[in-house]
């Protein structure tokens, strides 16, 4: 509530200031600030939250500007309707630019967005019969109030109003599950998919939001000037929009405001000397990257925080009374939870999976063991949808898993943790675990954007469930800590909490005890037993034999991609093939005999 009040107050102050300024030059600067704030707000979602480096936003600006130009001149539509439609056109273009971006990574993504921007720039320059080229389009209808075109002052007020509205709407969106989902894309796409975030859908959404705001900005500029030509659409504009977000503070809600105000004022100051203006922009970009990775917003936040010192908090004891949120399971308890037949996978010369068959029983703790390179992680990756098997039939709760994507598998009730830990390190413990609840929450885009009561209720319910999970694991005191700052053992626990938050029927754990000392390993064992009591089935890949033998109901042994043994822990331990697989071919028979005798009491 405080934030909303502050925003409204700021907007009111700006509007009041505009009322007293009569000089057109200064009003124009205020208007430009609003325009760039609109661009930056959307770009912040795409770059700051979703982490997609788009270098072609000028193209979306053009879509809005030329859209409104053509709609009001060639099609003779009313100005307000044209504005609305042009914004829609820009949003559609956002889908266009998102589509190829989904498939490419790294420099190729930058390339595709850059190419898009250039294509649009060339299009509006070359296709002069439609777009007017360098001559541009004249007589664009300006917005009107009571039949008269808006005065400069009214344009500024409209700008401030739109910025305020956009800011509040985006704030609703970004502080809830959508914001968290975007951040997870930036942090780790694989982990995001594993907790139920549909990576493709959210990337497209981020692109569309950025396109809509840039398009709106472009349309407003065209209508205010009543003129548009290709000089407006340049690579420099795309870079400027990027800089607005980077300099202001990517990923922060105040960032776009800070960036838009400072950079527009700076631009206005230096406008007379164009090469200096560009130089300063380049220098600011480098400066922001070196010295202010979190932008102005980060600097200000750092100043505020340096006053208070926070002592690192310790984990609490797990609450034995806490209950995990689970989904109802009305199937017969004797029916197998998961069956796998003939699962095979090969990469070139390596075959990490050869015709593996497995059956997981409800309510059991299953362990998957084997020497390094046996194919254990590959099997987990196949079950969780990260790797497509070449062959095999896997059924989970009688549903064939086939070619389903990882986030859909999570939706069916399979959760996992990762061998090399894939936490969203920059997010708090609570946000990490809340992301586990992402797919279980029902509030859609519109409800979240408008901050409807239904959306708030979902968020509150999810938080309650997360609190319960944190209590279960003894992490309640650490809810607000940054996940990446915790000691290793606790980070593993947070990843476990996140997986449990997806309310799984089956929990796949890839080496959960890796890097833990004996005490931590014993605690983990206790935790897993309690999770089983809550009705969750577990499949555990592990090297820590003590842990495996102590808690497992059933052990499967892999070697060179094949299953070589399975049974109870005692049966597997006594199996000669298992010993040979681990310790190697016996060099001296007497030594081997001594070894086996030494183990007996």
């Amino acid at each position, binding site marked *: 509530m405080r934030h909303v009040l502050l925003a409204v107050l700021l907007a009111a102050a700006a509007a009041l200031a505009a009322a007293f300024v009569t000089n057109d030059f200064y009003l124009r600067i205020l208007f430009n600030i609003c325009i760039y704030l609109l661009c930056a707000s959307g770009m912040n979602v795409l770059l700051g939250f979703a982490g997609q480096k788009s270098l072609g936003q000028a193209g979306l600006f053009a879509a809005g500007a030329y859209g409104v130009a053509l709609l009001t001149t060639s099609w003779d539509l009313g100005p307000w309707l044209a504005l609305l439609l042009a914004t829609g056109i820009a949003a559609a273009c956002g889908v266009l630019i998102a589509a190829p971006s989904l498939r490419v990574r790294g420099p190729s993504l930058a390339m595709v967005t850059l190419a898009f921007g250039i294509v649009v720039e060339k299009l509006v320059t070359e296709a002069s019969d439609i777009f007017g080229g360098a001559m541009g389009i004249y007589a664009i209808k300006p917005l009107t109030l009571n039949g008269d075109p808006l005065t400069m002052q009214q344009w500024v007020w409209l700008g401030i109003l739109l910025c305020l509205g956009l800011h509040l709407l985006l704030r609703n969106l970004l502080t809830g599950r959508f914001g968290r989902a975007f951040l997870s894309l930036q942090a780790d796409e694989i982990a995001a998919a594993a907790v139920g975030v549909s990576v493709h859908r959210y990337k497209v959404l981020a692109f569309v939001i950025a396109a809509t705001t840039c398009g709106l900005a472009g349309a407003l500029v065209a209508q205010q000037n009543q003129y548009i030509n290709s000089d407006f659409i340049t690579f420099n504009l795309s870079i400027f929009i990027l800089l607005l977000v980077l300099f202001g503070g990517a990923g922060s809600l105040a960032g776009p405001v800070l960036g838009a105000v400072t950079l527009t004022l700076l631009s206005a100051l230096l406008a007379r000397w164009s090469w200096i203006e560009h130089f300063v922009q380049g220098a600011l970009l480098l400066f922001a990257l070196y010295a202010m990775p979190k932008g102005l917003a980060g600097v200000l936040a750092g100043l505020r925080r340096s006053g208070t010192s926070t002592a690192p908090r310790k984990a609490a004891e797990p609450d034995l009374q806490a209950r995990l949120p689970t989904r109802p399971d009305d199937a017969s308890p004797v029916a197998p939870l998961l069956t796998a037949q003939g699962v095979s996978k090969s990469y070139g010369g390596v075959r990490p999976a050869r015709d593996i068959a497995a059956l997981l029983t409800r309510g059991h703790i299953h362990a998957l063991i084997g020497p390094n*390179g046996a194919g254990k992680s590959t099997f987990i990756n196949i079950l969780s949808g990260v790797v497509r098997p070449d062959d095999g039939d896997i059924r989970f709760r009688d549903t064939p898993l086939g070619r389903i994507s990882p986030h859909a598998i999570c939706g069916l009730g399979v959760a996992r943790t990762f061998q090399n830990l894939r936490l969203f390190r920059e997010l708090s413990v609570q946000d990490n675990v809340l992301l586990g609840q992402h797919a279980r929450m029902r509030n859609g885009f519109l409800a979240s954007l408008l901050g409807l009561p239904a959306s708030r209720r979902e968020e509150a319910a999810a938080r309650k469930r997360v609190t319960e999970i944190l209590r279960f694991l003894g992490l309640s005191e650490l809810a607000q800590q940054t996940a990446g700052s915790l000691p290793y053992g606790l980070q593993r626990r947070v990843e476990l909490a996140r997986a449990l938050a997806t309310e799984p029927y089956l929990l796949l754990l890839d080496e959960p005890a890796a890097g833990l000392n004996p005490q931590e390993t014993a605690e983990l064992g206790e935790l897993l037993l309690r999770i089983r009591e809550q009705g969750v089935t577990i499949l555990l890949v592990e*090297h820590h034999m003590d842990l*495996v033998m102590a808690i497992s109901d059933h052990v499967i042994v892999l070697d060179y991609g094949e299953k070589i043994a399975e049974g109870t822990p005692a049966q597997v331990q006594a199996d000669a093939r298992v010993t040979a697989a681990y310790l190697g071919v016996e060099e001296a028979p007497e030594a*081997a005999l*001594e070894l086996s005798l030494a183990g007996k009491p």
Partner: protein
Amino acid sequence: MTAMLEVSTASIGYGPIRAVAEASIRVEAGQVVAIVGANGAGKTTLLKSIAGLLPLSSGHIHFEGRDITAMPPHRRVGAGIALSPEGRQVFPDQTVRDNLELGAWSRNLSSSALEDAVEEQFNLFPRLRERQGQMAVTLSGGEQQMLAIARALMSAPRLLLLDEPSLGLAPLVIKEIFAIIRTLRGRGITVLLVEQMANLALGVADRAYVLETGRVTLSGTGAELLLHPQVRAAYLGAGH
């Protein structure tokens, strides 16, 4: 007598992970020393930091009396330490001969001296001479392992580090590789070997250390540890 290699209370971490905690290892010249332990125990991490690929968060490494803790990896090769990395890592798009010649990079040899050095390796590994013009990626796993060892030997090291030479290889091939390790010891090359297959490593080692979750828990001669129940327990769990 100062040992050839002395690792003193080395701790190595990646971010919040402590992979190795206060490990101390001694290798005397002319010995074969083995480090065994379950997967994830920190063996490869320790070897990589001896080669200079990972920094120590605390502790020291001394080689032939010099403190090399801060020395970058490309200079340690010149100092006499060579590593055959985990998974072989031969340069796949270059020929067997090219791989070997790159191994001698630090020695800056004339072309005739380089030729002699390559010949020496072919004498030790005749299979490689047969395949010298082939791209390294076309070699079998065992041949790639031989190539990786030969490549490391090309830098004329006094200490050879071998990371999991048996990984992913068939039993017969593993036997061959370990026979080569014995040959190398016969030629006076000091070997520090990291292995998951404890029996094999302990069978060839003069001295050995057991690593469990980053800590050295046992040390002794190879023969002693071969019979020690804690070794088996370290892999298969205690109490059986």
